[in-house]
């Protein structure tokens, strides 16, 4: 609660800093009529001041929040009678302190309140209050200090725009590196476990084996499955389900993008597009139920009519429904890029006597290709990463089959099943999840590299 008020106050200080910085810049230039002697627009000086007022203060506030409780707690702990802490583990001390905090904040407490505890709670409450005040003071002081600093530095020659822009650029670089950090985090969090996995199971078996049955016993008294770790059926399963999904999503998505961007009246487009986008947000549980209870039986019955032997869980059902889910990834992104192709391209084609569909197929789609591929890649990615639908509609058994009417399982499904049940980090079973994760990561990486080079090759830059 207090944090919010402080943030609001800080925002007000920043606004003030902006205003003052701006005015100061104008004044230093010698008045409104002279602002062209400034290096940058006055508003940049304002922004500069606002950043100086806001950023350090916010950082300080973040740090304070991170450490205040720790410091106050250690002060309180130091004052607790020694016998209360003697021989206690840190977890225990934590519990005692938790009790003290509960008492201090007026929550229900567990046991009888001893005088020591009461005293400690009082001290805690007092210290917390003081710390809170101190934070306000410190943060505001830093804010005002930053403002003053910016104020002092404001002079016509100061390259305010460059400074502000470097800060923005720095922020943007930081943002970009989040993607890298995430990857790093993911790789780091799977690579060691994968390594241990490959020490137990030979990579040869993993990559070339065609039998997947990883649920080996975790405990001595448990009996698991045969414990085969051939990942090929998982990858073929992933491939098949994704392929089916893409066979649904790409034509429907692309064609509806084309229709909406090129043929449909504006108001139809403005309604249909967001409605189709809803498909991306329906929880996968819903799709799972839909696939398992509506689509799969339908396919089975149809198959039976045609004299085919269809498993009640089929890759086809999961793939079809997954395809529906990812339609918007293809349609919306493609629609945007198609819409962004300059009109002069269309004009050029029409003027040669091309029909609208020829124009679309031969000029607009190629011109919009990088974006369309981007959308398709996103859709593929989503298909590869989806679990719930497959679990519910295609089952969990790893069949090596090319028949979409059979049940299959996918890499991600196995990862989820291996990770959500009982885990044991020295059993090949749990580690297999990490090996799968890493392999999937690498496989998709290779696919992405290929996709990128293809897009590069066919990229058509208009103008």
């Amino acid at each position: 609660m207090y944090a919010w008020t402080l943030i609001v106050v800080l925002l007000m200080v920043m606004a003030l800093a902006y205003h003052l910085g701006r005015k100061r810049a104008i004044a230093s230039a010698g008045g409104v009529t002279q602002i062209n002697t400034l290096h940058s627009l006055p508003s940049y000086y304002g922004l500069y001041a606002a950043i100086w007022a806001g950023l350090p203060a916010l950082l300080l506030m973040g740090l304070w929040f991170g450490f205040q409780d720790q410091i106050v707690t250690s002060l309180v702990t130091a004052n607790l009678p020694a016998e209360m802490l003697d021989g206690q583990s840190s977890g225990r001390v934590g519990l005692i302190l938790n009790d003290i905090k509960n008492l201090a904040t007026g929550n229900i407490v567990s046991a009888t309140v001893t005088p020591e505890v009461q005293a400690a709670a009082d001290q805690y409450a007092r210290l917390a209050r003081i710390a809170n005040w101190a934070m306000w003071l410190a943060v505001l002081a830093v804010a005002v200090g930053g403002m003053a600093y910016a104020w002092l530095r404001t002079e016509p020659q100061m390259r305010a725009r460059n400074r502000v822009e470097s800060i923005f650029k720095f922020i943007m670089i930081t943002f970009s590196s989040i993607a890298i950090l995430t990857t790093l985090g993911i790789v780091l969090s799977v690579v060691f476990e994968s390594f241990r996995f490959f020490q137990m199971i030979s990579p040869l078996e993993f990559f070339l084996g065609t039998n997947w049955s990883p649920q080996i016993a975790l405990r001595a008294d448990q009996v698991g499955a045969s414990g085969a770790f051939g990942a090929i059926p998982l990858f073929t399963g992933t491939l098949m389900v994704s392929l089916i999904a893409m066979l649904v999503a790409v034509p429907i998505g692309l064609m509806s993008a084309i229709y909406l961007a090129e043929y449909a009246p504006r108001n139809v487009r403005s309604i249909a597009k967001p409605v189709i986008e809803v498909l991306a947000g329906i929880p996968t549980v819903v799709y799972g139920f839909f696939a398992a209870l509506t689509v799969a039986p339908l396919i089975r019955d149809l198959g039976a009519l045609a004299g085919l032997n269809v498993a009640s869980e089929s890759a086809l059902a999961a793939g079809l429904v997954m395809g529906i889910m990812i339609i918007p990834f293809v349609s919306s992104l493609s629609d945007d890029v198609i819409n962004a192709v300059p009109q002069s391209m269309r004009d050029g084609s029409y003027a040669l006597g091309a029909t609208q569909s020829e124009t679309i197929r031969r000029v607009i789609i190629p011109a919009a290709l990088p974006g369309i591929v981007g959308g398709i890649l996103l859709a593929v990615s989503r298909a590869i990463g989806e679990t719930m639908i497959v679990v519910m509609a295609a089952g969990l058994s790893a069949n090596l089959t090319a028949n979409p009417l059979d049940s299959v399982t996918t890499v991600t499904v196995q990862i989820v099943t291996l990770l959500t049940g009982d885990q044991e980090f020295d059993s090949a079973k749990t580690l297999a999840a990490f090996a799968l994760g890493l392999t999937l990561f690498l496989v998709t990486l290779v696919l992405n590299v290929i996709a990128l080079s293809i897009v590069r090759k066919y990229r058509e830059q208009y103008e």
Partner: protein
Amino acid sequence: MSKPTLNAPQAPVRRTIDIVNASLKRRHAQERRFRRIGAIAVALGLAFVVLLFADIVGKGYTAFQQTYLQLPIELSAEKIDPAGTREPETLSTADYMAPIRAALRQQFPEVTERRELRQLYSMVSVGAPQFLREQVMENPDLIGTTQEVWVLADDDIDMLVKGQIDRHAPEESRRVNDRMLGWVEHLEEQGRIEKRFNTIFFTQGTSREPELAGIAGALMGSFYTLLLTLILSFPIGVGAALYLEEFAPKNRWTDLIEVNVNNLAAVPSIVFGLLGLAVFIGFFGAPRSTPLVAALVMTLMTLPTIIIASRVALKSVPPSIREAALGVGASPLQTQFHHVLPLALPGMLTGAIIGMARALGETAPLLMIGMIAFIVDIPSGFTDAATVLPVQIFLWADSPERGFVERTSAAIIVLLAFLFLMNLVAVLLRRRFERRW
């Protein structure tokens, strides 16, 4: 002028127009086919939405009503407020179940056997006294009077009244036995059973009793999670896309980042959960089961989507616009913010819509960070323990009680309404910025 024949091409054997006319029928057929396929594709897309909606709404709309029983309840002063002080303390701790049960007994005086009585009592919800208490506390004058009160029915009765339980099915395959059915029919004849709008569903947190279960907690959880996700992921995604597409030097390193971002999109969501568990909860000690951690995980998960969509959008802005701005001396940043971003914004919003939609519907990574939990209290901040809509749906879908079936669908309806609302804002924004050049 030189002689026209000098370099003249051989006149085409046939006039272009003849060739064109000859192929016209085929090309128009092609055109019509193409167009029709497009229309069919859109229709299919819309049909899927409608189908799923019809399915969900058909299953879920009944949850927006809840069965109540009307009972003449004697709020005797001795029982509720023996001292007559009307102190809130006393009023709130009084036993309100007793008068309800008494009223039931009074309705069916013939029921005396213990087992039967238990069944009779089970017709009202265990939550009914709580609402009676609220009424009394609000209006203490009721004490000492006998009031006709609508009390909350148990979920089995609710299901029966709504027809989810078939009254004509044989007794052993029905959760409501013949005796209870008789009581219900008796009350129905007297007009003492009514379906009313289910406010509980919208105002309460979850519960193990279907009739008491509400969506408010999960809704707020989703709200906080998505708010924070949006606040974090949109600027970060757009910022990263801007940097990568417009500022970063084009070299192997940025290629690597590009591939990398694309690849992150294909990382199964549960892996993001693992990462969040290890980094945010394990390393930074962020509190488990909170919107804060969920939002951080969701941010990492949606970032690739937003970055990719934004880059695509930036790519499709013609370079001449950038040149024009740079040419009058705008800085690259100004060029981006004043000219390129507004033109790319529709595409970026699309990315945000899709990313947010996914974040709204995602369950798997949340399993890892402790959000699959029974949390009754409605969260009031980013660091309160909370659950979110899809997880709530997941949990309800796995509950044995029949009453949760319709509530699951109703929760999905709420989620979709939430989604529509979110889309609406983005769509309005998108429309403002969309233009062709």
